[in-house]
């Protein structure tokens, strides 16, 4: 049970700034994911929280108490590393019991707690074995058990499922989430895998180059990404980006591309104000559309559809990804497996009018997302 606050925390290693003015709050009982590519500062963030690193600037506050100078052992925060660090000469039981013995719990208490944790992780039949006699997945669960058994204020995990095969990873994902919710413990989970983060987390902090890009619930990160980086990291395939020209026609704002025009009608349309990051209207903007927000038609459904050509088709079984040539841009769309298309076929596209994002051409920040209130009018241009 813990509330953890990072207040403008900076950590440098020589000339490298690993964590740069990071501010975030991890709430009591939350499943909190820290997501980012290698080198984003995820592991350093975790080490700062547990106390293995001291911040150069800023504060770490645990349950309202300034923790910068508190020794890791006194913080009551458990950390599970990617390489597990099990004791090879101890049985599974003794490995899990270790943190309890450190705290001088009674024998009976240790017995009860270890058995309960082992049962919930389906390793109660392995308690007398040594780690060397276990499969990779079983070892992973022993390490999980050891991290969970003493019910610390918070548990930190660094890519705990990275070494497991795909099927076991899926199973453990569900198990971990289920257990965390049942116990109501605070869990901070580091991963580079957006599917893991999206599927497990109550909230996600997306990091890049040591900086926090966005911290929010999965739905918000997915549907309202703060910038192009977040829109790329979340979603598979990632958001399509199409650079387009910005111009005015009377009182309307036009977003022009060789294959389509998006028209924001009327001087009062909020798009114009949103795009004017620097006060004036820019020449270019980047249109972002997710593959799942594009519909593909074999027959022209109307003047609002834009012309495209099928480049290649990637069937995945449950869904099909289509690579489409739009002007000279290649974008990806997801279509149902029953929709049969062929390479080089001429098709027409419709973007979901409520899910079109606009990003700054240089800043990369998301400036506007269409919604029901102020729609854009799309017009296809003949190829």
């Amino acid at each position, binding site marked *: 049970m813990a509330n953890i606050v990072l207040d403008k925390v900076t950590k440098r290693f020589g000339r490298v700034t690993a964590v740069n003015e990071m501010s975030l709050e991890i709430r009591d009982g939350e499943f909190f994911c820290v997501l980012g*590519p290698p080198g984003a500062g995820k592991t350093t963030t975790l080490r700062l929280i547990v106390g293995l690193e001291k911040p150069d600037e800023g504060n770490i506050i645990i349950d309202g108490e300034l923790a910068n100078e508190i020794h890791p052992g006194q913080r009551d925060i458990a950390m599970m590393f990617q390489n597990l660090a099990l004791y090879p000469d101890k049985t599974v039981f003794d490995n899990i019991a270790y943190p309890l013995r450190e705290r001088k719990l009674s024998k009976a208490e240790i017995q009860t707690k270890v058995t309960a944790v082992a049962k919930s992780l389906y390793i109660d039949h392995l308690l007398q074995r040594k780690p060397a006699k276990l499969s990779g997945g079983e070892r992973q669960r022993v390490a999980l058990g050891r991290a969970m058994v003493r019910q610390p204020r918070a548990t930190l995990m660094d890519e705990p499922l990275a070494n497991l095969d795909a099927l076991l990873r899926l199973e453990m994902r*569900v198990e971990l989430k289920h257990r965390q919710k049942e116990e109501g413990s605070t869990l901070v989970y580091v991963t580079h895998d957006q599917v893991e983060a999206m599927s497990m987390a109550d909230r996600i902090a997306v990091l890049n180059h040591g900086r926090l890009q966005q911290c929010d619930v999965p739905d918000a990160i997915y549907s309202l990404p703060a910038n192009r980086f977040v829109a790329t990291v979340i979603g598979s395939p990632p958001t399509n980006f199409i650079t387009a020209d910005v111009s005015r026609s009377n009182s309307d704002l036009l977003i022009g591309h060789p294959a389509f025009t998006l028209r924001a009608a009327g001087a009062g349309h909020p798009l114009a104000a949103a795009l004017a990051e620097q006060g004036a209207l820019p020449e270019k903007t980047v249109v972002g559309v997710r593959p*799942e927000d594009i519909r593909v038609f074999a027959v022209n459904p109307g003047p609002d559809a834009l012309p495209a050509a099928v*480049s290649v088709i*990637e*069937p995945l079984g449950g869904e099909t990804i289509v*690579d489409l040539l739009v002007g000279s841009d290649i974008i*990806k769309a997801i279509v149902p497996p029953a929709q049969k298309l062929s390479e080089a076929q001429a098709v027409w596209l419709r973007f979901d009018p409520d899910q079109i994002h606009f990003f700054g051409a240089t800043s990369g920040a998301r400036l506007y997302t269409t919604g029901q209130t102020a729609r854009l009018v799309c017009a296809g241009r003949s190829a």
Partner: protein
Amino acid sequence: MASIRLENLRKAFGPVVAVDTLSLEIPDGEFAALLGPSGCGKTTTMNMIAGLEVPTSGSIYFNNQDMTRVPAGKRGVGFVFQNYAIFTHMTVEDNIGFGLKLSGAKPDVIKREVRAIAELLQITSMLPVNAGRLSINDMQKVALGRSMIMKPGIFLLDEPFSNLDAAFREYMRGELKRIQRRLGQTMIYVTHDQVEAMSMADKIAVMYCGELYQFGSPDEIYNWPVNQFVARFIGSPNMNFINCAYRVENGQAMLVQKAGGATLPVDNQRRQLLDAAVNADQLVLGIRPEHLTLSAGRTADSLWEGLVYAIEPLGPKTIVHLKVGDDLLQAIGPASYRPRVGERQYIGLDLARTHVFDGKTRAVIR
């Protein structure tokens, strides 16, 4: 350009049989994938096609010509491995042109060909750059270019993208397929990643423990798996499996779940197969998550009930994990579907999309 035929190909390393009597045919210009977990024999198979390993028995034909004993250098085969073999002290241009230069091509020809390949791979701007300064992603593109420029009739790739980050891998799937279509080469792609195989290949060979389990189009492999292994290996989230027994009560044929007692009606066609099945007491029902439908209230389609165990919101869809009896099943719900943990759900099944496997042999009965 060449077609490939493998006939009863076998490779043993001492007592270990890496590839066991493998036969398959890849037509000229097709994109084939060898798919399986590590140790399934896919790399050994590729090495034999390349000429890097000599088969213990069996034959390899290119364009109906026996190549089994032809040395690697004379097979007209190009390959790219996981570890990009490029010269880091040379420019990208010299790297890509290296093979042509060795073969004695004229400088202006080399220049032209290198340009063409670089354009195809979208690395034209990097040509004057020292290869050692490139990102890992771009190095692998250069490695592809180096091999491609020799225009081999057969192009072999062994997990070329497995060291690269997920976003680049996803991007290269489309790129590689486009390039293969453009060049028209016969391509064999070795991978353990079913998504790569499904998305790129015209045909997939699913291998396990040296054995070819199934060879077919992505559509066939996904919709008509020949056994429980293929069914489990292909698709994500993976197929649900429920241990069942076949029962006929009062003339009604059905499958009965062992860990709960949920039942599934059996139509006449399946009934004939199950009446003849040897292990009718040990069956496994398979159904993919996207063929289950969920609702909070009972509907005409509701066949089973389950309790929500966990929810995984993935953005465009939601994976819902359910306890049905003691079996844990996965279903796919729409983007905004958010039942609470512990809530009851009514489950509809697309019966035509269910599979029945023999619980002992794991072969499909259907």
